């Protein structure tokens, strides 16, 4: 573990963090431990985000640092090496039909992934049938519906209804989030909960799969 690397990532010192990671790799440090450090740092950043001490740009830059360090680590992993991190659960996630907003969705998917979930990201403008199909195939515990506009209310409701019609509703918890969503809309769409941001989505999902 490199406390220095963790601190640099947490402090948003991108250039120094990437340089240090490179140096550590050249010195022969176990490549996977760098990813663990990044994950530790992202945990701290996530907590700060939840506490209102840092903001979306920090999450995005943290993701960017992880991407760069990940790209350096990858070629150095022995083939087949590196045990898979144990996943907390599976989540199907997407921006509902008619809505093409992806930024918030991408951040939520990223934070869910970092926090140990296996996420199937269906993208934006996702037709109702595609959600149903994904739930059948991927068997998630949680479905996340993202939407920015008031026009997303009905597609959200229709998506939940389609899960009911397919007999899948009881097998999943449904959370919604995005620009004009709130508890009122969650009730309207018959979702289980509204999450106000990426960390709320993590907390909700962890609660539903019984993880801490």
């Amino acid at each position: 573990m490199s406390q220095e690397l963790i601190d640099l990532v947490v402090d948003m010192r991108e250039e120094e963090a990437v340089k240090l990671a490179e140096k550590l790799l050249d010195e022969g440090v176990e490549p996977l431990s760098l990813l663990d450090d990044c994950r530790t740092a992202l945990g701290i950043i996530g907590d700060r985000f939840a506490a209102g001490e840092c903001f979306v740009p920090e999450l995005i830059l943290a993701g960017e640092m992880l991407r760069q360090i990940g790209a350096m680590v990858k070629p150095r992993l022995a083939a087949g090496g590196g045990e898979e991190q144990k996943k907390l659960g599976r989540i199907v996630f997407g921006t509902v039909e008619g809505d093409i907003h992806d930024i918030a969705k991408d951040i939520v998917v990223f934070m869910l992934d970092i926090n140990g979930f296996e996420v199937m990201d269906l993208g934006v403008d996702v037709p109702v049938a595609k959600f149903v199909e994904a739930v059948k195939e991927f068997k998630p515990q949680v479905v996340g519906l993202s939407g920015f506009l008031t026009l997303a209310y009905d597609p959200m409701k229709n998506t939940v209804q389609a899960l009911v019609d397919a007999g899948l509703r009881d097998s999943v918890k449904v959370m919604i989030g995005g620009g004009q969503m709130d508890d009122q809309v969650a009730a309207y769409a018959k979702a289980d909960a509204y999450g106000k941001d990426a960390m709320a989505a993590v907390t909700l999902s962890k609660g539903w799969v019984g993880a801490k």
Partner: protein
Amino acid sequence: MPKPENFESLTPDQKRQARLDAWINHEGIEFKDPGAENSYRERARLFADVFQMKKPARVPVAIATGFAPFHYAGYSCKDAMYDTDKLGKAMKKFHVDFMPDTAASAGLYVPGQVLELLDYKLYHWPGHGVPENTSYQCAEAEFMKADEYGAYMSDPSDYFIRTYLPRVMGALGPWKELPPFTDLLELPFIPWGMLPFGLPHIQETFKKLMKAGELSLEWAGKVAAIDNDIVTSLGLPVYQGGFSKAPYDVIGDTLRGTRAMMLDTFRRKKEIIEAAERIVPFMVRMPYGAYRWGSSPTVFFPLHKGADSFMSPKVFKELYWPSFKAVMLELIKDGMIPFLFVEGSYNQRLDLITDPDIPAGSTIWYFDKTDMKEVKKHLEGWACFSGNFPSSLLKTGTVDQVKEHCTQLLDDLAGNGGYYMVNGAVLDEMNPENLHAYVETVKSYR
């Protein structure tokens, strides 16, 4: 009420008053009947009082209108942007049936044919990238690359003509081959500068522009007639005047896109500050394009990238606020009224925006999801405020919930004046009964 001859020598307060008086007295508008004229004056007066933090005769109510009029009339969002007859019918029906205290302009629903002709890439619109019954949506991309801040700043107009527009409008792609117009210096250079305009593929761009111009002109005439009919027959003033943007949002929305802009705040701070300063005069000039004496002196700013979750208060103060404030101060000096639509929330910024350099009574703050009790605490006595009636309630709530929430907001906020009611986010969908309850509850509130 013509423009006073000594207008230029008036103080900013006097200029604002003169502009508001001209708006209330509807310079240049002929009404269908005296009733409509009176109703227009009364309503404009309600808003003018509120803008200047006075207590109005009653609290006025506005509807921030997205595509709701079209759903309500049984038309699609595509109809709004492709069929001016349906556009006119839907707008009229919506205003006749709901009668808010201000009219929304049909000019918000721009012609899809023009966007298609130009192959405009920054947005998707109904039937073109998003379903026919969905509103237009921004499809951000890095139309300005990270290493182009310098090129933009050295000559924004040249950058727009030869770099930005060719990227954001497919039809103008060939303009990237044009030489800079600043080369046209003396007689010997003229024909060389003209050469590109003889090339067929460059000529094609101008043919498309001319066609887009014709279509836009035709559309604008129809839209003006639609607006004029609503204003002069129903007596509803249009309170939204010109349009401008915070310079940071020009970079974030128009040029760089949200994600790239957020990374720039760490990597290119100095360039953001310089570029934002460079943009200030353009954003001061922009609202005058739509303004004529007697129209509403408000200048609408949709504020995007400075919201609570998008940056820390520290970054807001450093990167977002200074250039934005500079634009507002210039407009205020000329008696124009910055009308600030805070999308998302500003819960962490209320002490920052109540900047003592901004004179009291010179701005209008319209909030989406900010805590309105805190807004009142911070803004009362400094500026007019409005907003945060949840658009979700108008679609998904009950009539009783709508009435209750309206009354609660009015009880909490309206007591000392300087407040009007408006839903927090533009309305695409709603339950008509709820919208009636919303308008009537506010109108009958005393």
